[in-house]
């Protein structure tokens, strides 16, 4: 007995929209041929994603000039046939160079209550964002890669924007300030490699998630009492060089002392020098550290002890070469801390390990003081001296019977 009923068509419209949204756009449009009921079902899908999959023809490779034309035509056709509001528009095709057609598309999107725009320009020159983008008042998420942004003077802000992601974007310092300060609901901010900006000043009280990367010379963060996660990568190694201004360092240190809600901290090319206040919610820490510097180890130890929920710690070695350090001072240091019990630590990772004394002392300390440790992963910097490192590791006592020590 055959079932004559089209199973999917029985489902409500919002569900078929969701199912079709899970498909690459090509497959979604192909469903138009299934039956009369299916012909225009794809036209109301809330998400439009145009990427490499759109121009992949079965078997026949697409040639460069026609690929550009093809994609432009595809996007125009889809936008023309589409009905209703569009929630998300993403253009991220590795072989597509920006053209002025994008201006038309953004103008159209500003009229259909667009909530999310992702624009990645992989080839050719940076794309100059048209002013119509700034009229998309319903935008919740904006992501730009290799674009040029000029904030119009009449810009009133994105009153619904919660998430902003700018990478390799050209904009002025004033532009960045104007953009951030006019987004009252901003919760997530990612700024990576902003061309032309050497200083950064982020002062938005509602931020919950922050990711900043670049060769900055001056960094100021305001008070962020809602911040749950932070990642910083100062490629120029700024705060560790005394010459580049202690003022910057003290701003940053003040900032790190005042993060009451923080759960995850990732510091690349930056080490904390002064211990922060109690961090009762911190669950994950990633930090670059010079194992031979007592004050850095002390700071991290203080941090670990003031974080009762800290489960996962990740250390990345900052020192590039083998340094013979004063073993004497290190041994004293560890003796003072022997009575420590780090109940909360469950996972430890250590990267760029050279196999010298301070590193081994830290490993030994962590293994003997963490009764709940489940996994310790060690990644050596090079294969030389591996044997010795392994032998030492095997000798160390472990406080936790479940601890797995993994050597990568």
């Amino acid at each position, binding site marked *: 007995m055959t079932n004559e009923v089209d*199973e999917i068509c029985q489902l409500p419209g919002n569900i078929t929209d969701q199912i079709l949204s899970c*498909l690459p756009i090509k497959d979604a449009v*192909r469903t138009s041929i299934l039956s009369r009921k299916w012909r225009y079902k794809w036209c109301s899908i809330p998400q439009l994603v145009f990427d490499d999959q759109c121009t992949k023809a079965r078997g026949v490779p697409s040639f460069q000039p026609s690929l550009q034309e093809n994609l432009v035509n595809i996007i125009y056709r889809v936008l023309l046939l589409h009905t209703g509001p569009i929630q998300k528009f993403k253009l991220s095709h590795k072989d597509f160079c920006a053209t002025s057609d994008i201006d038309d598309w953004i103008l159209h999107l500003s009229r259909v209550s667009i909530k999310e725009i992702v624009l990645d320009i992989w080839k050719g020159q940076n794309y100059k964002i048209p002013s119509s983008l700034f009229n998309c008042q319903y935008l919740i998420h904006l992501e730009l890669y290799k674009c040029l942004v000029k904030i119009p003077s009449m810009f009133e802000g994105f009153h619904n924007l919660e998430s902003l992601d700018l990478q390799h974007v050209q904009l002025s310092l004033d532009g960045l300030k104007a953009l951030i300060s006019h987004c009252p609901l901003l919760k997530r901010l990612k700024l990576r490699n902003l061309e032309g900006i050497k200083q950064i000043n982020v002062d938005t009280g509602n931020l919950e998630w922050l990711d900043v990367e670049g060769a900055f010379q001056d960094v100021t963060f305001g008070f962020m009492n809602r911040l749950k996660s932070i990642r910083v990568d100062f490629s120029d190694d700024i705060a560790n060089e005394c010459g580049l201004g202690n003022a910057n360092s003290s701003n940053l240190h003040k900032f790190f002392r005042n993060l009451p809600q923080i759960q995850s901290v990732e510091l690349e090319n930056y080490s904390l020098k002064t211990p922060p206040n109690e961090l009762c919610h911190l669950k994950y820490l990633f930090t670059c550290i010079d194992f031979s510097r007592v004050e850095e180890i002390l700071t991290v130890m203080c941090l670990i002890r003031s974080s009762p929920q800290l489960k996962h710690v990740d250390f990345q070695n900052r020192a590039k070469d083998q340094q013979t350090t004063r073993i004497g001072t290190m041994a004293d240091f560890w003796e003072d801390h022997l009575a420590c019990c780090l109940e909360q630590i469950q996972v430890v990772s250590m990267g760029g390990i050279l196999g010298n004394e301070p590193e081994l002392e830290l490993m030994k300390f962590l293994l003997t003081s963490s009764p709940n440790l489940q996994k310790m992963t060690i990644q050596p910097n090079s294969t030389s001296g591996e044997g010795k490192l392994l032998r030492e590791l095997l000798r160390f006592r472990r406080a936790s019977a479940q601890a797995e020590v993994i050597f990568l």
Partner: protein
Amino acid sequence: MSSSSSSSSPSCPKKMITLKSSDGETFEIEEIAALQSKTLESMIDENCASTPVPLPNITGKILAKVVEYCTKHAEVGADAESLRAWDAEFVSVDHPTLFDYILAANFLEIPTLLNLACQSVADMVKGKTPDEIHKIFNIKSTFTPEEEEELRRENQWAFD
């Protein structure tokens, strides 16, 4: 007292709520697990969940599985990998059951289950020819050859 457990104190019994399916079966679910359903969450907030909650659109067979899903996803400290594997198992069911999951997740507003089940259906369609999709989902094509020709022209790029 071990510090690695969650913050609930052991002396407090787990709060349960009762759900009643369309065919009269009742199921108990922990309140914490039930919070994954936006519908149930608002009922709990408004204190309407103390008596068995009637769910006239969901049969006992499906409701049992939905409760199982929510309970599994409310577990603390679950490994992401094993949860993914569990989810994949969960949606390896026949089409009618899968669609029932979708309808139940839609009604109870459980976004994670809805996404999982919809993605599962989409995966069955992805990369297949129209004929194959016809067979899988029992769809009857009602187009004449001329209509089909016109359709292929309308969205030619998708059929290349």
